[in-house]
């Protein structure tokens, strides 16, 4: 029983940032923008949340700072990819490198060249049971909000149009640029919360490059989820369960090489993909820049 709770706890802990960030990313991709720089945005918000928390001893101020930094960084990258119609993959890669460099340097600057492991204040946590914390509520709220936004509102229809055929949306009198920027703003807030979660709720510390690929896992979850909110949530949970099982299996001291368990999250995502089948596919204009004539 204890061990089941252990796996569940790890699953929730890892699934929370996945689901929050994936909600934002799904909306953004449905609007036709692929945010390869998600990893960098999450790292940036993780760092600034950590920095603010360590200075003010308030995880909530840290969360605010994390979200603001994510929005600012996304505003820069969105200016390139949405406004100036730059290549989204190249720009995203630049954002990742930029964020890795800036956070690493500032961390060295703020905490000394040889670095000190610093622990910061955490959001309130129920340590006795599954390490539950208030940010986990957002893991449920964000997908719900994103789903309503995409499927039940006029804006969502326009956004989805931007992902399928931006020319038609533009011809109907909507601004593709503006809609995509709004989607980007929503994705930024989600990525900011998810990134901040890593430092102020999950680990209460920071290490250079600590996101360690989680941004790319989110991108994978959106793809595996076939660009539907429900699918994405399902894929995120399966990946998170893969992680939880991985830690448990490793702790069990089997003779199987541990690298095999490292593959579990991706394996479970692949299975999710197979189960999802070919019911729906990528937005037709995903990652295609749009320049109004």
């Amino acid at each position, binding site marked *: 029983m204890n061990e089941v709770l252990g796996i569940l706890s790890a699953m929730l802990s890892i699934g929370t940032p996945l689901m929050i960030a994936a909600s934002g990313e799904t909306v953004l991709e449905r609007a036709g923008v692929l945010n390869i720089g998600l990893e960098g945005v999450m790292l940036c918000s993780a760092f600034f949340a950590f920095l603010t928390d360590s200075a003010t001893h308030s995880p909530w101020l840290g969360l605010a700072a994390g979200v603001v930094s994510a929005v600012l960084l996304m505003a820069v990258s969105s200016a390139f990819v949405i406004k100036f119609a730059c290549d989204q993959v190249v720009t995203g890669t630049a954002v990742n490198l930029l964020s890795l460099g800036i956070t690493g340097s500032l961390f060295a600057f703020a905490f000394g060249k040889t670095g000190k492991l610093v622990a910061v204040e955490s959001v309130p946590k129920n340590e006795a049971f599954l390490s539950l914390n208030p940010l986990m509520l957002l893991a449920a709220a964000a997908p719900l909000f994103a789903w309503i936004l995409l499927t039940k509102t006029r804006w969502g229809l326009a956004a989805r149009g931007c992902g399928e055929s931006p020319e038609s949306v533009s011809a109907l009198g909507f601004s593709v640029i503006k809609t995509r920027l709004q989607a980007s703003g929503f994705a930024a807030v989600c990525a900011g919360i998810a990134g901040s979660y890593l430092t102020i709720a999950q680990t209460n510390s920071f290490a250079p490059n*600590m996101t360690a690929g989680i941004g790319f896992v989110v991108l994978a979850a959106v793809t595996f989820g076939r660009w539907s909110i429900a699918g994405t949530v399902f894929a995120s949970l399966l990946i998170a369960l893969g992680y939880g099982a991985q830690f448990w299996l490793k702790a069990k001291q089997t003779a199987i090489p541990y690298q095999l368990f490292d593959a579990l999250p991706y394996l479970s995502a692949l299975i999710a993909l197979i189960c999802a089948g070919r019911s729906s596919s990528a937005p037709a204009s995903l990652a295609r820049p749009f320049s109004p004539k």
Partner: protein
Amino acid sequence: MNRVFIALLIAASIAGCSSNTPSTQTQPKFKVALLTPSSVNDSGWSALAYDGLMGIKQELGAEVNNVVAATPQERRDAMRSYAQQGYNLVIGHGYEYNQDGIEIGPDFPKTVFVSSSGTKTAPNVGTFRFYLEQGMYLLGMTAAKMSKTGVIGMVGGPEVPSIESTFVGFEAGAKSVRPDIKVLKAYTGSNDDVNKAKQQTLALIDQGADFIIHQTNAAAGGVFEACKERQIFAFGTNSDQTSAAPDTVLASAVIIAKPAFIQLAKEVRAGTYKGEVRLVGMDVGAIGIAWNPALKPRVPKEVLDMVADAESKMKSGALVAPKNEF
């Protein structure tokens, strides 16, 4: 227009990288470079080497420089460019730099390449072998003596021979005082992923472990956070990591690189250094145990006495901590 922006961005980043132009060539200065596998602000493995480099700078007035070089390509590029810039000593902090030194060394006979751990040597290529297993052995003894559950755990980042060897030392120390102790081991595969380190530690605690030692470098915060949540003791490694979690880190097995680095630099400057594998341990003060002063009173006196006794035996050579060769 966009292309111009990106080109500018790339140009700026290249300019930023290459700002380390060699100094004036009129008066050759003794120059020492350090290559680390991770950022020197990890407050652990790489940080202690940086500390040693600063020691060389102060003691010998040497011109020093350091860079993170992790991939094989980065390592060789960095070693070659330091050698080309006339650096007298290039220290690669990890066993992986040993092979690179062997390959590059013959091209630059005026530069000495030394790696931290490794077994291969050449006239201008040698290695340090920090005998951290000694410190790990003592911490293993402490954990086994104090454990209530009879289960203790080790969490590693990537599975590399040097880390595996320190775990061998820890396990041997534990079994030396309590043969039936169960020692769990798990690798996360990452030095950066703090949460993986945390979740893996929690999983070991769920299996009953009530003492945890780690080798996760910068991700150590996750290990300590897990131990803090479950209110058990953790051990630090490489550097004194008490400050990271003052209520959780009972003691750290530390490497003090400074004296060994300074000695090496002096020999290289004097031209007396010959490539060799140099084992540096407790006998020369390179390895030690740093207790957390706030928690030390909670360690039973018999355990402290036992550790102090084993430590003096290690210094005299009467007690040998096991280690792997790699």
